[in-house]
């Protein structure tokens, strides 16, 4: 017995050491931002390491769903960190088991007040085998990386089955019929959502599931906010949005900022300003707010933390260059790309854009998703100087733009991202939008930062090549 314990301890410490070495080599020598590899190595040596993470966190929250996980996770962690001294979180978006372990290796403590983790839909089952959440927040289900999951139905069926045995509170997006259908598990359910507002529409091009998740009839919609998120009811079985516990009731866009009116369970109103564009961010903001209030934090403090939030991860992140702003927004699935294009439409400044489309395993090897996005909305955007296309599949996004009716003379292909960024930054515009897929986002960010700091000007193509080879983050 004694031997066993010390052997187990030995394995644990070996795992931690090995993970740390990998992390050091990646960060310091390869200058890589790969965040999953150290965890992967540690888990190979000590497969139970997630259980250690579970034991060290007093309370745990898991965030899952298709879109908005990383933003909601960062926002919620930011709020909790202001009230609690130690919060563990995988903030960089590495959301498979190894990503969670990497976050733990990076910031190893004996005890945490909170563990807040975003977990990929496909990893939910493997994570919750070891890590038992007190709260599970489900954002939405859209089609994403179908080359991994096969079909959208499969992703939420797997999560539904894993949830059955968990003793947890569910925080659910009431406006997504696929998510609100989790009510049938009869857990303690908390619902959040965004009511009809001036940006709601009566028509929606992409609807993931037009059919009632309860009885398969055609769902009726009063309005859409974002994809299949909106006000729905089933004419046959009565399935509809559950009553909100927390809601955003009004949205206004002014001076490149969003202003929300938020209502809590006691119908108390609070005005909130959020610097990040898009209706999807109203949902992310509402999700983080609802969870923070549900765990007992006061409304005014939470609202204040949200207003101070700053993103550093290439999700609508701003960089101020002399004479222009560079804005990076990750795009990785049809609905995300459609919504990003819609939010750029509100910006009437003189602009240029750069799409970076990669097809590495972490991006999804199938780039056909760009055809499911409403790229046609690009034609509504005013004052576009140039649209650059880059990445491994630069030609595919250029072709998508052509068939969307975007004038070909606006579009230029350069599959070397370094060169394309250089061209984008040399554009005489007020704002430059850089829209990379997952494996390009950190690299694009580093290239922009290097120019901003005036150091290192250009990464060599060798390093860029190395980075494309390295371990995917999810």
């Amino acid at each position: 017995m004694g031997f066993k314990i010390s052997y187990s301890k030995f394995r644990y410490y070996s795992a931690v050491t090995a993970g740390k070495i990998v992390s050091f080599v990646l960060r310091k020598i390869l200058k890589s931002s790969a965040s999953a590899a150290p965890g992967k190595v540690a888990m190979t040596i000590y497969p139970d390491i997630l259980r250690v993470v579970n034991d060290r966190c007093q309370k745990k929250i898991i965030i899952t769903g298709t879109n908005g996980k990383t933003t909601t996770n960062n926002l919620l962690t930011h709020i909790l960190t202001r009230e609690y001294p130690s919060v563990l979180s995988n903030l960089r978006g590495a959301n498979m088991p190894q990503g969670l372990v990497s976050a733990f290796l990076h910031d190893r403590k004996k005890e945490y007040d909170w563990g807040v983790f975003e977990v990929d839909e496909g990893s939910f089952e493997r994570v919750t085998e070891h890590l038992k959440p007190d709260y599970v927040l489900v954002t939405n289900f859209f089609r994403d990386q179908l080359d991994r999951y096969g079909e959208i139905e499969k992703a939420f069926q797997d999560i539904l089955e894993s949830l059955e045995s968990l003793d947890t509170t569910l925080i659910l997006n009431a406006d997504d019929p696929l998510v609100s259908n989790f009510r049938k598990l009869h857990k303690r359910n908390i619902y959040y959502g965004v009511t009809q507002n001036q940006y709601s529409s009566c028509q929606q091009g992409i609807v993931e599931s037009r059919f009632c998740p309860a009885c398969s009839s055609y769902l009726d919609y009063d309005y859409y906010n974002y994809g299949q998120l909106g006000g729905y009811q089933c004419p046959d079985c009565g399935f509809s949005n559950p009553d909100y516990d927390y809601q955003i009731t009004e949205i206004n866009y002014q001076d490149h900022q969003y202003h929300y009116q938020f209502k809590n369970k006691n119908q108390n109103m609070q005005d909130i300003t959020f610097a990040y564009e898009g209706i999807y961010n109203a949902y992310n903001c509402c999700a983080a707010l609802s969870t923070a209030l549900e765990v007992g934090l006061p409304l005014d403090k939470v609202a204040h933390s949200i207003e101070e939030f700053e993103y550093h991860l290439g999700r609508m992140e701003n960089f101020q260059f002399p004479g222009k702003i560079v804005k990076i927004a990750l795009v990785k699935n049809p609905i995300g790309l459609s919504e990003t294009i819609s939010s750029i439409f509100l910006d009437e400044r003189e602009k240029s854009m750069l799409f970076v489309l990669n097809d590495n395993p972490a991006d999804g090897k199938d780039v056909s998703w760009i055809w499911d996005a409403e790229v046609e909305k690009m034609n509504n955007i005013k004052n576009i100087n140039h649209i650059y296309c880059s990445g491994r599949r630069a030609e595919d996004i250029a072709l998508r733009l052509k068939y969307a009716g975007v004038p070909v003379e606006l579009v230029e292909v350069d599959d070397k991202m370094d060169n394309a960024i250089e061209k984008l930054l040399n554009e005489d515009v007020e704002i430059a939008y850089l829209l990379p897929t997952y494996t390009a986002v950190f690299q694009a960010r580093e290239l922009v930062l290097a120019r901003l700091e005036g150091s290192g000007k250009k990464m060599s193509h060798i390093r860029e090549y190395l980075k494309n080879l390295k371990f995917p983050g999810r």
Partner: protein
Amino acid sequence: MELKIYHMYPDLLNLYGDLGNVTCLRQRCQWRGIDVEVVGFSMNHEVPLDEGDLFFIGGGSDRGQNIVYSHLLKYTRMMGDLIEDGAPVLAICGGYQLLGEKYIDADGNDVPGLGIFDYHTRSEEGRLIGNIIIENSLGLNPETLVGFENHGGRTYHDHQALGKVKVGYGNNGQDSEEGMVYQNCIGTYLHGPLLPKNPHLADYLILKALERKYGLKELSSLDDQPEYAAHEKVLKLYSP
């Protein structure tokens, strides 16, 4: 000149960018000054099938495909007559399987298809996923067709194949054949979507439709530089 493109069950059969095929057909007609009407045909929108000049059937989830099957059943004969008469049809993945006799699911149960063709599809262990490159049997230039396949079913038949598999799996991952051609009906597992990166195949379908309707023998050419650049990129990245 005017073409009616029928998009079959756009609300139920639309996976992996299938919509891009319809966009491609429509645009390539419009760029040539051919009037186009895209007609959605579905459960809540039944329109006379025989008025269609070009038909597109996409892929769907198992659930979507089952709903479509029970609805389309009453149109089987009409669909068969249209194909026999030379109407161009492009059926992808689930749509391709649907035209056959049956689908044998993972538990060995027979799920009936429309039975327009005598082939069958069997669900087997593991999905066939990845970039695919084939050499077409239609005599089109260039010889290659590129796409992305993602299917659990394996289709077995003795008809003419759409092409020989150079990279990827194709119909069943065994006989190096991909797709099916009968008259002007093409069944295939190539998503991607198929047509934008293979404009020679898109134009083949458009010409067949115009030939049937107006006796046209040739299409005017377009500047396909971006199309073939994307086509070439797949060859460059994924050729052996």
